[in-house]
């Protein structure tokens, strides 16, 4: 088990494609970190560099304080689960799991004991004599995990291991992976393009786009306080609403204003006045058909959409189309006027030029890693 430190890590492929640029992060020992990004973001490259399958063009990789940048995968002592499992088809489940031990010349009896122990942990004790082709996707996934666990490696690397499973199995495998992580107490680095995977499992989430680090933060904070416009739009089931406008100071308040909206932005610290992009998630806006009794933005309902279990409305105000949540019990009809309420605590301001967040996020309440309970074994 080890902490992982990346310093200015970069990878340029032949032909000049910059897959990863200047990635500097520290992953504490025993943490579950998800690397999240769209395809082509460099997340798989990052994992391959960590495994040693690819060589870094720039920067260094440290496990604890040991520089492993030039260590071959054979000697790096990491374990990896692949998207298509990467099992040995001609070997039984038991042989697959025992393979790394065999390479390390562990005596036969000891191998059998460890394989049995791992299979008990994963609940695949009955499959030992089967071949991979006789197993379901979920079972293969467990075997691949078993082959990693039996090694007791310094770092676990997981490359989209759940993406070939159906939805129900995914949910239960997520819990399973969390459980294993708690039992093993090892460092897990999990690559995915699926935000649900990342937010459900990760202690921390590392968001990548176009080879660059966007945000590295606790899972909840990545969603609540996106560091820039990319993270804001990449996370969330429904697209975030964006408005461009100007910031003005009125007394103690900072106001966001454009042709159709005027909103107070309570961020504590007045930012520079000037232009800004306001981002609001659909669930931070509520729509009502009745006049709320005070000044509120008003528009027309264009259409309604059910995103189970909630109802969302698309409201037209001036040139804007805004997706907003319809509170339970509210009866809205298409074409009717609708009044909007913006949750002031959930307004995000971004620099229109760089996309960086303008209003500072509150301090982290609990440091990441406390989610991990005491190791059971």
């Amino acid at each position, binding site marked *: 088990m080890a902490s992982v430190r990346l310093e200015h890590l970069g990878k340029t492929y032949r032909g000049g494609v910059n897959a990863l640029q200047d990635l500097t992060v520290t992953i504490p020992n025993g943490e579950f970190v998800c690397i999240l990004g769209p395809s082509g973001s460099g997340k798989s490259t990052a994992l391959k560099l960590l*495994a040693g399958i690819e060589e870094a063009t720039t920067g260094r990789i440290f496990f604890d304080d040991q520089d492993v940048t030039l260590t071959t*995968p054979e000697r790096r002592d990491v374990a990896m689960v692949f998207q298509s499992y990467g099992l040995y088809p001609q070997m039984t489940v038991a042989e697959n799991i025992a393979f*790394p031990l065999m390479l390390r010349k562990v005596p036969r009896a000891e191998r059998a004991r460890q394989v049995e122990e791992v299979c008990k942990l994963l609940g695949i004790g009955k499959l030992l004599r089967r071949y991979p082709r006789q197993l379901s996707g979920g079972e293969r996934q467990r075997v691949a995990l078993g082959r990693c666990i039996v090694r007791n490696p310094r770092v676990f690397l997981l490359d989209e291991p759940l993406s070939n499973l159906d939805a129900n199995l995914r949910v239960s495998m997520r819990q399973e992976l969390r459980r294993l992580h708690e039992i093993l107490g090892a460092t897990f680095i999990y690559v995915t393009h699926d935000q649900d995977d990342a937010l459900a499992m990760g202690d921390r989430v590392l968001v990548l786009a176009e080879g660059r680090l966007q945000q590295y933060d606790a899972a909840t904070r990545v969603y609540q306080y996106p560091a820039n416009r990319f993270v804001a739009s990449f996370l969330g089931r429904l697209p975030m609403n964006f408005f461009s406008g100007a910031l003005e100071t009125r007394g103690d308040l900072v106001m966001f204003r454009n042709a159709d909206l005027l909103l107070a932005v309570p961020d504590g610290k007045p930012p520079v006045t000037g232009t800004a992009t306001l981002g609001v998630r659909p669930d931070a806006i509520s729509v009502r058909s009745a006049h709320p009794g005070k000044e509120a933005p008003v528009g027309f309902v264009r259409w309604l959409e059910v995103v189970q279990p909630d109802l969302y409305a698309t409201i037209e105000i001036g040139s804007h189309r805004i997706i907003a949540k319809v509170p339970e019990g509210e009866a809205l009809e298409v074409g009717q006027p609708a009044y909007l309420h913006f949750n002031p605590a959930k307004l995000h301001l971004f620099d229109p030029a760089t996309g960086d967040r303008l209003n500072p996020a509150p301090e982290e309440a609990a440091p990441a890693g406390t989610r991990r309970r005491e190791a059971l074994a």
Partner: protein
Amino acid sequence: MSVLGVRRRRSPSDLAIKGEQRFYAGVFLLPTALIALGLVAYPLVYSLLLTVRGAGDLPGELGPWIGFSNWTHLVGDPVFRQSFVQSVMYVVPACVVGVGVALAVAVVLNQDFPGRRIARACLLIPWALPPVVVAAMFEWFLDARRGLFGAWLTGLGITARPPDFFSGIPGTLFTLVGIHVWKTFPLLAIMFVVALQYLPQETLHAARIDGAGMLHRFRYVVLPHLRPTIVAAVIIELLITLQLFDLIYALTLGGPGAYSTYNLYFYAYKNTFEYQDFGYGAVLAYVVSALVIVCALILTRGRAARSQLAGG
């Protein structure tokens, strides 16, 4: 049968063709069926009749019934026995060396190096050359007095005098095996190059991360992946080698000595076309065919090999 009774399982053929349609189907299929029958069944029956009747006086005519003497003749024929043994002496080293060389060459050609495309294209040259050209080429190349190969060997100090590749018994047979392997390995190598393109990359990476070095990766990932291809390559090399004829004809005519480079195929040719014993020639041809079928059946017993052959 009740309404709920079990319905007869429908095969694809009765879905497509019913009643009178069956008649038309037959009419349309008839030409093809006739051609197939004429090309396959007729020679098969005719050659079987040849073995028990022999050829008549006029071309294409069958002789009078002579019983199974052609078949019983096999048992006591020393040349048949020698040809049989020598067929094995051709096939076994050709398969082992041919598949081995092809695999090694394919692994090299699968590496990334400049000029790989050209090297792959050149690979096919031996396979594309006409057998007579190959024979003439090697006759010069291996000639005991003026041959280039002999000059190389003496020049490098490996042998004192250039060896004679076409006078030894059974050495000459193995010279032919060598030339045959040189001519046929490209076909097998192409099969391996294709199979290597489909190496499971994730499994290879997994093996590296599991701690497997190059040899272990070859042993536990590459070789199992190639196994069906190896079986297919052995079958193909076996079939080609059992039917080896042109090199023998062009280079040794069965010699040196009386029969030292005969194989069954060549002996069948000799009987049929030189001794004009069509009946015995047909018997020998049947023996070769039976050998081919038996060997192919034994080698394709594995399911993986069957699917590889069926799927191409």
